[in-house]
């Protein structure tokens, strides 16, 4: 039971990283990034390709892949997302959705649909004694990285001027511009950062999950549910809901296996009935 709960937290670590990226992008740009799962998949494939073609290992991939994907995300925002932003939100919805399909199929064409192997880094191959049970060291590492990254984002958001501007622009973009802040200047780095987080989650996933072109599409549906449960645009809510949903779905797996696929969505429906703006969401403010 405890071990299953821990599995849930590790699963939640991925949800949290992905939901955090989605939440900052949605909050700041009002764009629901349907390509988020594709960037997660690219993160995993990025580290696979680095190892397979160039012999570059996990630790280097952990740094370079998110960095490169983050830059690609920033470029994407500059070239496309920004141009579509003044139009109906539907255009960016279609754009990111189409982009996800294109990225998936490009990878599929090159590597097929079967999963690629990716070894665990040697330093984390063993197990760790957690007192009550022993646990694979790599999974503990994933959980730790996710907690540290989410914690660091939290500190930046709450304790720095940049964080204050991002919070303000997320809550009331128009008012924030009227108070003399060039919100547009912060949009590109925030978008790139969100994509980098998806890439990081992908790199972390490579050694413990199947690396295949559809890995992102499968996961991202759940992540959308996580973001909705946490409250669209609520940064704290998305992280908290990420870990909570990981935990709930792992325990659900244990006790009601028949519901394992649908539990998250039942939960989402229940939360929305109870609090339409999500657990930590704000009611739509007029303006």
């Amino acid at each position, binding site marked *: 039971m405890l071990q299953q709960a821990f599995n849930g937290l590790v699963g939640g670590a991925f949800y949290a990283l992905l939901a955090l990226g989605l939440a900052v992008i949605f909050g700041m740009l009002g764009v629901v990034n349907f390509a988020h799962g594709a960037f997660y998949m690219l993160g995993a494939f990025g580290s696979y390709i680095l190892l397979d073609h160039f012999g570059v290992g996990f630790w280097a991939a952990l740094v370079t892949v998110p960095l490169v994907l983050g830059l690609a995300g920033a470029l994407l925002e500059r070239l496309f997302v920004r141009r579509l932003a003044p139009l109906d939100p539907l255009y960016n919805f279609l754009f990111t959705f189409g982009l996800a399909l294109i990225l998936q199929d490009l990878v599929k064409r090159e590597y097929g649909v079967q999963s690629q192997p990716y070894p665990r880094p040697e330093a984390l191959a063993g197990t760790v004694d957690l007192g009550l049970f022993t646990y694979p060291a790599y999974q503990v590492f994933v959980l730790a990285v996710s907690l540290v990254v989410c914690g660091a984002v939290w500190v930046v958001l709450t304790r720095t001027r940049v964080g*204050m*501007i991002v*919070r*303000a622009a*997320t*809550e*009331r973009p*128009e*008012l*924030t*511009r*009227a*108070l*003399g*802040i*060039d*919100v547009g200047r912060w949009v590109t780095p925030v978008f790139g950062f969100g994509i980098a987080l998806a890439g990081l989650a992908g790199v972390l996933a490579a050694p413990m999950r199947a690396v295949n072109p559809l890995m992102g599409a499968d996961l991202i549906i759940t992540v959308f549910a996580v973001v909705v449960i946490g409250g669209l645009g609520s940064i704290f809510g998305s992280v908290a809901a990420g870990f909570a949903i990981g935990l709930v779905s792992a325990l659900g797996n244990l006790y009601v296996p028949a519901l394992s696929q649908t539990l998250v969505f039942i939960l989402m429906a229940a939360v929305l009935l109870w609090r339409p703006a999500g657990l930590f969401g*704000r009611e739509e*403010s*007029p*303006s």
Partner: protein
Amino acid sequence: MPRTDLAPLLEVGGLSAWYGEAQVLREVSLRVGEGEIVTLVGRNGAGKTTLLRCLMGLQGRYSGSIRFRGTDIARLPAHRRARQGLGYVPDDRGVYSTLTVEENLTLPPRVGPDPWTLPQVYQTFPRLAERRAFPGTKLSGGEQQMLALARVLRMGARLLLCDEPTEGLSPLIVRQIGEILREVKRQGTTVLLIEQNVHFAATVADRHYLLAEGRVVESLDNDQMRTREHELLDHLGI
């Protein structure tokens, strides 16, 4: 009488605005002199809020000229207008719930030559000092209004654009806001104010523009405002 002896800080000419196909402002022209307090009076839907949004650069579709301190700002994005010295106090007060009271105050950059310092703000608004670490929206309505005013004073804005700061507040708070506006004026700051409360408008402002159906229909001074109070209240439907 419009006080033409004062150099106009703000000069609006032929301003028209639309929401979709509906025209909400029609060729509005007005002037606000340096150091004046001017109110926009008119019933709901007359276009007052739209006019302030046009001045601030938040309105989607509009045409006409907006000269502020001698340069046309009609094509500038909102944040550059703020940096030129426009201080916006929106109709819903615009207090951030994800920012503390102090962060709400320090978010905007300093734009004017003589911005209020934080201690100065806290001395004038002791309630904000007590609650500086609280989320902005944990304040009462009146306190949030004080916060919104204090924020643009700390920016050092030269022209405050206030969208109905007294709406829904108790007479005591309304009196306080009146005192603050007079103090602001003594320091040389200019205010363009939307106000439904004719009585309040006449006690704080120098002049008034009456808006109806997107047009400026009259320019009034305080005496005219007082002698025609009943007629105006009738017109406003209050």
